[in-house]
């Protein structure tokens, strides 16, 4: 029987009742929940401004009960720059995928981070374009089959996977750069700690905090959720090793 004193867990109030549109096995839902929990635990719902991307995360504003700005493709860091500078008492974060952040928005993310904007960047890297139907991303692995690399990503044709987080870590404007994942309870907890640290940093005027989450895209990868996790462990982690790259 459920009595108040027996309740040890409840869904955070920062998540809305809307049914998420994400596919089974997708990492977005987990990361959304972690951000919502951090906002709830820090008691900053009224002080948080989210900037959502173009990509599967575009509807993040339907799921987290906070104020949102929906950006054009890749431009979230520019929006966040102004939102934070004009509202320095607010927590401002962007939520971006690999196409948004590492392809079309490369200029905006590099310069926002290099200027040391006191923002949080949550970067979901699943090595594919989810929303448009599984095309090649800048982070797509060599040999990986996508809708626009039907014969596998070929270096001669498509160049190399872009390790943008390693580049971001080199920028003096960032204070915290880390790569995490969310495929089991341990990694979920680690990612939550990283997100919390990033949010706390944004009031310390230390510069930008950047949390990459290596995630799965079962639909895009054409694998079951369980197989997706294994494929990620076997293929993504060697290319995108987990851990902190910078923590000042």
């Amino acid at each position, binding site marked *: 029987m459920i009595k108040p004193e027996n309740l040890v867990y409840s869904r955070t109030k920062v998540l809305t009742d809307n049914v998420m549109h994400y596919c089974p096995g997708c990492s977005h839902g987990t990361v959304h929940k972690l951000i919502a929990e951090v906002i709830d635990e820090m008691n900053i719902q009224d002080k948080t*401004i989210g900037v959502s991307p173009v990509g599967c995360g575009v509807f993040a*504003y339907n799921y987290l009960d*906070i*104020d949102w700005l929906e*950006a054009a493709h890749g431009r979230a860091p520019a929006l*966040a720059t*102004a*939102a934070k500078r004009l509202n320095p008492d607010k927590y401002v974060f962007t939520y971006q995928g690999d196409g948004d952040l590492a392809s079309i928005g490369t*200029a905006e993310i590099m310069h926002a981070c290099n200027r040391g904007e006191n923002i949080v960047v949550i970067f979901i890297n699943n090595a594919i374009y989810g929303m448009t139907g599984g095309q090649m991303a800048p982070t797509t692995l060599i040999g990986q089959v996508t809708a626009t690399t039907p014969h596998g990503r070929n270096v001669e044709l498509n160049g190399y996977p872009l390790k943008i987080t390693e580049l971001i870590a080199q920028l003096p404007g960032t204070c915290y750069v880390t790569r995490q994942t969310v495929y089991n309870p341990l990694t979920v907890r680690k990612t939550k700690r990283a997100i919390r640290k990033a949010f706390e940093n944004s009031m310390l005027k230390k510069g930008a905090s950047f949390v990459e989450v290596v995630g799965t895209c079962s639909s895009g990868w054409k694998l079951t959720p369980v197989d997706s996790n294994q494929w990620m462990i076997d293929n993504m982690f060697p290319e995108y090793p987990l851990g902190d790259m910078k923590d000042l």
Partner: protein
Amino acid sequence: MEKKEYKLLKGNEVIAIAAIRCGCDGYFGYPITPQSEVMETLMELKPWETTGMVVLQAESEVASINMLYGGAATGKKVFTSSSSPGISLMAEGLTYLAGAELPCLVVNVVRGGPGLGTIQPAQSDYFQATKGGGHGDYRLIVLAPASVQEMNDFVDLGFELAFKYRNPVMILSDGMIGQMMEKVQLSPEKPRWTDEEIEKLNGSWAAKGKPSTRERHVATSLELDSAKQEKFNQKLVAKYAEIAKNETRYERIMCDDAEYLIVAYGSSARISQKTIEIAREKGIKLGLLRPITLYPYPTKAIQELLPQLKCVLAVEMSTGQMVEDVRLAVNGKIPVEHYGRVGGMIPTPEEVLNAIENLIGRK
């Protein structure tokens, strides 16, 4: 009574000064000739130490306009300035701002195109400013200053209109007005708006942190349900009609007895004013209609004059853009011709007179 302050200033400089004085919250821009003095003046004046205004040099015009989106969405008074090639880069951001119904001010100090073109004055961005520029059915409110004084005045007016209608406003200037110096009466200094004052203007909409007392605010232009998107498009149309009804501005000079009419805005209107004087000395009953808002366009103001007119000449520093709106207003009732110099070349009053004399068969 408050003491009036006069200064001798460049058009670009006065934009910066007017913005600070009218309580602007933020400027985000990228250098481009012939308007770089706007940001240079702001940086020199350091308003962040006085009014608290934020000034930031962005990495590109693409970033500048998206910074405007970020600032405007939190309910702040933000502006940028650029020149033609930079405005092309802002086209994406402008349509998102219009689609999310966000207020902001964009100053275009136009130079000749296409492409990199020239750095000299032109009026060849009329189509871009008034007919779109970015994708989708949207409009900017477009103000066309013809003096350094109007560069000053239209900053405050631009913000007022932007917030009244929650719509981006463009000041469509050119390299001549941006670079020339004139005596200006500065606007009175106003404090920056408080959050409460912004809410008073047209309700609570800014996304600046959600208190538990209200629903979340989302600045977005996305709607996957076609029926809802159509409704939204129709709402915009109604808003634009309201703007046309309330905000159409123009000036008529020597039109009372005019048999011939020049329609010209901005620099071309200044030049054409001299043409009118010479024409009148020669006994030609020539008048000038100067659109001050290019969107909404003063169509009715032209139509009201038609019974007394024999023909109309549209004078603009382009190969013929605004002339299309003149023709739409005249609707074939009398001849409409275009005269313009392009590529950074500026017509003389005598050249304009010559064009009028050719049109009315005096030559």
